[in-house]
C-alpha cells in the first residue's frame, strides 16, 4: 500500500497566526469600546478607515508580488490598521488614517518582505510618519465626553466641515498628559494640577479608564499565552521606575508613576504595540531589556521631548536595537557552560 509522506511531528498543531491575531483583536475590544464611549464616533471611523485601507493595501501588494493571500486572511494587516487607528486623535480628517495605513502596510511591512520580515513596528512607523508630516492634525484631541455626534464627526472627517456654531478651538484641547507636562514646565505644582478637571481619579481624566481597559485586555492575552510577560512587564516597570525616581526627587515638578502608567498609550503600548513579535526581541531576557528600554525612553520623551507621547518613538528606537540585544542575550544551552 502506498502512503504519502509528511514531516514530523505529525500531531495536529492547535494554534495558528490567525487565531493569535483574532485573540489580540478581541483583547483590544474593551479598550476600544471605552475609547469610543469617551471620545465619540471619531474613534470608530478612524479604526474603520485604517483597517480597511490596511486590508486593501495588503491585498494589492500581495497580488503585485504574486504571493499567496494567506497573510491577508490571518488578520495581521487588520491588526496593524487597528493599532494605528487607535493611536490617532478621533477628530483627524479621513486622509490621516488612510495615509498612515498605506505607509504602514506598503512601506513598513511589505517592502521589507511582508509578514515576519519587517524590522520596525508597522503601526508605529505609520504613526510617526503622520506625526512628523502632519503635526497639527495629530495633536487635535477633543475633551473626553464632549465629542460631537456620529454624523457631525463623519461630516468633519470627510469634508472638514465643523458642526455649526463650533470652532475647532472649542472642540479640541490638549490631552491631559500634554497639558500637565506643559503646566509642570510652567512651574505649576502637581498638587495644583491634581485638583484641576484635567485629572481624573488617579490619572488623566478619561484616559485612565481607557488605559485600565487596555490593561485588562492585555492581562487576558497574557493568561492565554498569546504574549509573554517579559515585554509588558519591562515596559511598565521601566516607565514606572524612571517616573518614580524623578517623582521621588521632586514630587511637585514631575508626574507620579501611576499617572504615567495610565495616561496616553502606556497600556496599549505595553501590551499590544511593543509585543508585536516580528519587530521585538526574541530571547526571553532580551525581551525584558527591550521592554525596559521602551519604558525608560517613553518617560524621557514624555518629560523632556517635543512630542506628547513617547511610545511610538521609543518602540521604533528599541526596534533598531533589538537584533543587538538578541545577540547578547542568548540563553545558555542545556549542557553548555555553567
Amino acid at each position, binding site marked *: 500500500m502506498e502512503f504519502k509522506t509528511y514531516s514530523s511531528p505529525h500531531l495536529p498543531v492547535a494554534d495558528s497566526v490567525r487565531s493569535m491575531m483574532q485573540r489580540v483583536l478581541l483583547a483590544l475590544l474593551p479598550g476600544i469600546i471605552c475609547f469610543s464611549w469617551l471620545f465619540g464616533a471619531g474613534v470608530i471611523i478612524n479604526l474603520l478607515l485604517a483597517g480597511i485601507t490596511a486590508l486593501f493595501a495588503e491585498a494589492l501588494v500581495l497580488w503585485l508580488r504574486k*504571493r*499567496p493571500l*494567506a497573510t491577508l486572511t490571518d488578520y495581521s494587516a487588520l491588526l496593524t490598521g487597528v493599532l494605528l487607528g487607535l493611536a490617532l486623535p478621533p477628530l483627524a480628517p479621513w486622509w490621516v488614517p488612510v495615509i498612515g495605513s498605506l505607509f504602514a502596510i506598503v512601506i513598513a511591512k511589505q517592502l521589507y518582505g*511582508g509578514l*515576519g520580515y519587517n524590522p520596525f513596528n508597522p503601526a508605529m512607523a505609520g504613526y510617526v510618519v503622520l506625526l512628523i508630516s502632519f503635526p497639527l492634525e495629530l495633536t487635535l484631541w477633543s475633551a473626553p465626553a464632549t465629542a460631537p455626534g456620529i454624523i457631525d464627526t463623519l461630516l468633519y472627517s470627510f469634508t472638514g466641515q465643523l458642526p455649526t456654531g463650533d470652532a475647532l478651538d472649542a472642540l479640541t484641547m490638549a490631552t491631559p498628559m500634554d497639558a500637565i507636562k506643559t503646566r509642570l514646565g510652567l512651574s505649576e505644582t502637581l498638587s495644583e494640577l491634581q485638583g484641576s478637571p484635567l485629572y481624573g481619579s488617579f490619572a488623566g481624566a478619561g484616559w485612565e479608564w481607557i488605559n485600565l481597559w487596555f490593561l485588562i485586555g492585555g492581562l487576558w492575552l497574557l493568561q492565554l499565552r498569546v504574549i509573554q510577560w517579559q515585554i509588558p512587564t519591562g515596559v511598565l516597570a521601566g516607565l514606572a521606575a524612571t517616573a518614580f525616581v524623578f517623582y521621588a526627587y521632586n514630587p511637585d515638578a514631575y508626574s507620579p508613576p501611576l499617572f504615567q502608567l495610565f495616561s496616553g498609550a502606556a497600556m496599549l503600548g505595553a501590551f499590544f504595540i511593543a509585543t508585536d513579535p516580528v519587530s521585538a526581541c526574541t530571547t526571553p531576557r532580551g525581551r525584558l531589556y527591550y521592554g525596559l528600554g521602551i519604558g525608560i525612553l517613553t518617560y524621557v520623551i514624555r518629560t523632556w521631548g517635543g512630542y506628547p507621547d513617547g511610545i511610538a518613538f521609543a518602540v521604533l528606537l528599541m526596534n533598531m536595537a533589538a537584533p543587538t540585544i538578541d545577540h547578547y542575550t542568548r540563553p545558555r544551552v542545556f549542557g553548555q557552560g555553567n
Partner: protein
Amino acid sequence: MLTALTVLGILAALIGLVLGYTAIRFHVDSDPVVEQIDKLLPQTQCGQCTYAGCRPYAEAMAAGEADINQCPPGGETTIKALADLLGRDPKPLNPEHGEHTEKSVVVIDEQVCIGCTLCIQACPVDAIVGAAKQMHTVIRDECTGCDLCIPPCPVECIHVVPLPPVIGNWVWPKPADPASQPTGTARQQAAS
C-alpha cells in the same frame, strides 16, 4: 582657530599611532588565500575549469584572473562558498565549463583491458592500480570521477558508473516554503 587645529591635529596623530600599533601588534596571520580557496574546491583535478588542476585554478582565482563559477564538479555549493570567501557575488555555473553532474566513479572492464598503463599515467590521484601488461583496476574509494582516464584508453574499456544514493549520504530534503520571501542568495540560486 589655531588651538582647534592643533588639538585636532594632535588627536589625529595619536589615534593614528594607536591604530598603527594595534595593526602590527595584534596582526593575525591567516592562511594565504590560495590555500583557503583550494580547500573549498572538490579536488577532482578534472581540468574542466581550463586550468591544469584545482591548485592552478585556486591560484588563478586568487590572482583575480579566473571567475568563481568555472567548477562543474563543485556546483552551486562551491560557488557559494567561494563567493563568501572572496567577497564576490555568487553567480550561476558557467555552462561553457560543463554541467554539474552527480558524483560518479569509473570501472575498468577487465575483459577488454590490454594493460597499456595509459590510464594509470592519466589518473591525477593514482586511483588505478596496475602495471604494464598486467590487469588494471580502479580503486573505487579513491576515484574522484574526473574522467581523465577515459580519453587515453585505446580500447575504450573504462565506463562511468553513477554512484547510487546510500543511506549514509542521504540528506533530508529542505522543506519547500511557499509563503516566505526568498533571501538574496536563494533568489539567485533559484534563478540559476
